[in-house]
């Protein structure tokens, strides 16, 4: 054997074995195993397994209060979706809400109180103890109260109307010169309150019964209300049930809402008041208005003097308005006829969330249209809302009145507490900054992440993220009825965070400011339980159950504890409707002394005169953004799909420009440009958009992309920093020019 085994035999054996091996599963199985092994590196995350549960709660990321169905695995949420039939949400969530359960893991999450260190141009959170942070806030507040230092204590409440808001106001009421600042939200109800001569209740819009909705730039389908509800109302329900309203959208660009509207009316930026006056002119001229009601209740409709409402709108003939707004006279007349024909009709303002509210004059002009149409106090229009009972135990000195930021004297706030719960709208920091006492102010932000305005604070106190804490969700500002839902914690909050209510209770205790009736618990959950008990005792309304999609009348709910249990399981209390109180007398121009002059001035347009005029500043700059996603603070890291990986939405400092305008200035799509206004300059990335009006630039205020960046604040300046700051309230339009970067 050995004698006959030659080298040739060996080679044959090896070659044959190799060839034969190929006919066995061994090499292929090995290759397969290697492929599988290389797909399972230890650093590739393995999703944790666990018990699967479905829990119901409420989204707290914006005031809409959408119902949430959370799929939880091992006690932690892994996906969120809408609740079918929910009276507030309409069965869906927006992209911001769909990523709400990611926010506890936000890269900019703060887990302990921090002082912002800006030495060297950086803004870096430096940990401090909660006691030290509270002591600094108490010291600043005490100095204002004792008169040791000038200034006042203020709270800027990102979302007014909550029990927490009442606690803020009680705390401020116990301080010397406490200021409670609340942004304008929803339908500009403050303007109507200024026009009514007697109290009437906060108006809400009865959209379910509206036939025609005229929107002055409000992003009806893009964050203005609960997405599912608004889509059903504007696009009609797929099942054909329910009523579909006719939407007329007035704004300079073809936005998402404008693209889906029945009619889009592009108008020149900042000329909303002129168009509203033009429509009023035609309603009156063609006798399409509710003349009987107007003549009975309006004190300044026709006074025989030169400063009446009639004399004001008589200046805004269709041809004149057409020259100001760019909207043809025929279109103006057509809209006026449609509003009168297809009633009930409602007119709302709002504008882009990044651009802030329309001016007071525009809002009064819009309310004037509603009053002319007879839409105020009528089903399908604006009806007064009966407020829900609050926590009866919150007592002490009288609550601080609601103040407007623009009315606060400059350099007057010593301690500012920023509640960063998002209203969804933007507020330029420079408007806040100029109200602060120079060199000696303290800004404390209550925020889960160091983003947005919290980056600019001196102290940041970490609060629970949206899926980590018990919270309440009252009715959004535009709701015609009061509602209340609870947000349940879906996962535990980290040890270092503190609920805003608990923080204010501790601060009030340090300053000996009583907040609650003697003997009543100051624990946040107890405050909410007392409020729920008060609602139960009122016997009003019904409760929606997300488990079966049915409503239960309050009379059928045995006890406050039963109501609490229903709400804790994702239920939503909705108040019953009552017959609206008769509309009181009102002033169409508003009650301010200079109302006529200011309204006439607004009718000429909002673009302020600047040195050099339109020749030096030939373009118009407008900030833009999505409600609730104007910075990184509420944006899931996965939102990069929309902002960074697809271009569906615009990132911080991306500018939409009409292609013809861009080419005229030598700009290229995706190229760089520098936008200049009289207030400063900003580098942007150009994006061509044929839906943008020629001569207008829309610049996104955020988010910044990825949410990972901790880079310097000065590198993340947004367009609001170069918007006008002289009016104190209106920053949505600015004269600008552009050049290639």
């Amino acid at each position, binding site marked *: 054997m050995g004698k006959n085994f030659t080298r040739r035999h060996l080679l044959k054996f090896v070659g044959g074995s190799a060839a034969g091996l190929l006919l066995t599963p061994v090499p292929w199985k090995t290759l397969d195993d290697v*492929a*599988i092994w290389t*797909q*399972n590196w230890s*650093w*590739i*995350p*393995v*999703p*944790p397994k666990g018990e699967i549960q479905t829990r119901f709660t409420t989204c707290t990321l914006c005031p809409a209060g959408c119902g949430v169905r959370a799929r939880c695995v091992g006690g932690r*949420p*892994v*996906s969120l979706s809408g609740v079918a039939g929910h009276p507030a949400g309409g*069965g869906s*969530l*927006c*992209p911001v809400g*769909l990523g709400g*359960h*990611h926010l506890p*893991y936000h*890269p900019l999450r703060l887990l302990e109180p921090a002082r912002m260190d800006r030495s060297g141009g950086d803004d870096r959170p430096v940990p401090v103890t909660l006691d030290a942070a509270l002591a600094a806030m108490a010291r600043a507040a005490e100095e204002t109260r004792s008169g040791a230092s000038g200034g006042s204590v203020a709270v800027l409440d990102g979302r007014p109307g909550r029990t927490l808001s009442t606690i803020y106001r009680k705390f401020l009421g116990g301080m010397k010169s406490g200021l409670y600042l609340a942004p304008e939200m929803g339908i500009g109800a403050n303007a109507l309150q200024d026009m009514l001569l007697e109290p009437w209740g906060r108006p809400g819009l009865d959209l379910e019964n509206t036939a025609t909705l005229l929107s002055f730039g409000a992003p009806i389908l*893009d964050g203005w209300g609960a*997405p*599912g509800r608004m*889509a059903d109302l504007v*696009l009609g329900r*797929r099942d054909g049930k329910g009523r579909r309203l006719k939407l007329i959208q007035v704004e300079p660009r*073809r936005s*998402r*809402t404008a*693209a889906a509207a029945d009619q*889009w009316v*592009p108008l020149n930026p900042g000329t909303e008041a002129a168009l509203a006056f033009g429509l009023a002119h035609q309603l009156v001229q063609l006798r399409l208005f509710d003349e009987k009601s107007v003549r009975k209740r309006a004190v300044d409709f026709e006074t025989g003097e030169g400063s009446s409402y009639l004399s004001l709108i008589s200046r805004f003939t269709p041809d004149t308005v057409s020259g100001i707004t760019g909207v043809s006279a025929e279109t103006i007349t057509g809209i006026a006829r449609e509003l009168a024909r297809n009633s009930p009709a409602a007119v709302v303002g709002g504008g882009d969330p990044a651009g802030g509210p329309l001016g007071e004059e525009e809002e009064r002009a819009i309310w004037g249209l509603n009053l002319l149409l007879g839409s105020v106090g009528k089903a399908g229009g604006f009806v007064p809302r009966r407020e829900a009972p609050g926590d009866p135990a919150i007592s002490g000195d009288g609550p601080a009145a609601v103040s407007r930021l623009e009315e606060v004297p400059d350099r007057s706030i010593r301690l500012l507490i920023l509640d960063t719960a998002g209203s969804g709208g933007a507020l330029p920091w420079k408007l806040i900054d100029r109200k602060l006492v120079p060199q000696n102010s303290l800004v404390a932000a209550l925020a889960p992440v160091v983003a947005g305005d919290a980056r600019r604070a001196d102290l940041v106190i970490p609060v629970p993220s949206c899926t980590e804490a018990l919270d309440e969700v009252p009715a959004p500002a535009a709701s015609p009825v009061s509602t209340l839902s609870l947000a349940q914690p879906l996962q535990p909050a980290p040890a270092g965070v503190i609920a805003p209510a608990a923080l204010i209770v501790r601060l009030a205790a340090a300053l000996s400011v009583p907040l609650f009736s003697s003997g009543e618990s100051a624990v946040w959950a107890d405050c909410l339980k007392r409020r729920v008990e008060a609602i139960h005792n009122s016997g009003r309304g019904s409760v929606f159950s997300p488990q079966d999609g049915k409503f239960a009348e309050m009379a059928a709910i045995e006890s406050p504890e039963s109501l609490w249990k229903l709400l804790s399981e994702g239920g939503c209390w909705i108040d019953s409707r009552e017959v609206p109180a008769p509309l009181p007398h009102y002033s169409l121009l508003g009650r301010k002394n200079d109302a006529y002059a200011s309204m006439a001035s607004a009718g000429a347009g909002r673009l302020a005169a600047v040195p050099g005029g339109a020749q030096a500043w030939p373009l118009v700059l407008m900030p833009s953004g999505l409600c609730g996603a104007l910075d990184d603070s509420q944006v899931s*890291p*996965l*939102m*990069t*799909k*929309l902002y*960074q*990986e*697809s*271009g*569906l*939405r615009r990132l911080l400092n991306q500018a939409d420009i*009409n292609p013809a305008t861009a080419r005229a200035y030598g700009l290229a*799509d995706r190229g760089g440009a520098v936008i200049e206004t009289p207030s400063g300059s900003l580098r942007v990335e150009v994006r*061509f*958009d*044929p*839906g*943008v*009006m*020629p001569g207008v630039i829309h610049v996104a205020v955020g988010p910044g*992309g*990825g*949410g*990972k*960046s901790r880079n310097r604040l000065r590198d993340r300046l947004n367009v609001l920093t170069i918007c006008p700051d002289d009016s104190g309230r209106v920053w949505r339009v600015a004269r600008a020019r552009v050049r290639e970067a």
Partner: protein
Amino acid sequence: MENEKKSRQRFAMVIDVDRCTGCGACMMACAVENNVPPARPEAGDRTGITWLRVYRMDNGNTFPESESVFLPVSCQQCDEHPPCVSVCPQNAVELDPKTGIVGQIAERCLGCRYCMTACPYHARYFNWGDPEWPKGMEQALNPGVAPRMRGVVEKCNFCHGRLHAAEERAAAAGKAGVEMEAYVPACAESCPANAISFGDLSDPDSSVSVLARDADTFRLLPRLGTSPKVYYRSKKRWVRELAQKEAVKEERKTVNG
């Protein structure tokens, strides 16, 4: 054989373009459901991963006559001759005869990206890096879907994880097939405008079958003969005509004029 044919399902989607508002909820829900990681810092619209991507389409007119719609584009689930299947050297792409879903088997994928080149809808995405989530966020991942690693291609599979879960529930209940009420992809479930319908094309009475036969319904690039099972609907003629062109490239072409 006949019985086997009857038990087959052909899952399909009909997207009403006129109802889509371009909110992006479908993209977000898709990424959450399928454990698609956030973008790497350097990622852009050409290197990002979006199993479902919403494009804005313009009619090419100038302001104010320009019109736009939003077109959600995912894997079109080609029913006949899927180009990605035939080109894959690894058999990592399969057309499941029982469901009609074109599946991507990450474990077999070599990352040659031939399938990406072959796909006429630009609906496939390559993992240029390892998937990374912010610290702790892996706890929020969907346990029904395995994350993919760098070097492999991925794409929409009509939420296969949900199909498996529905099949398990059906089997536990002793039922033969999946009931449509139990299986809805994340994008269809999340759409606030109810623009996305999902169902079984093999059932001639299903909503998707009825919608697919509608005169306003169309498919992308029908001339290629791939018979996509993702249908679109629009009453606007220019939208239907635009869809016959190279859909994905069209956005920039029209935007740039």
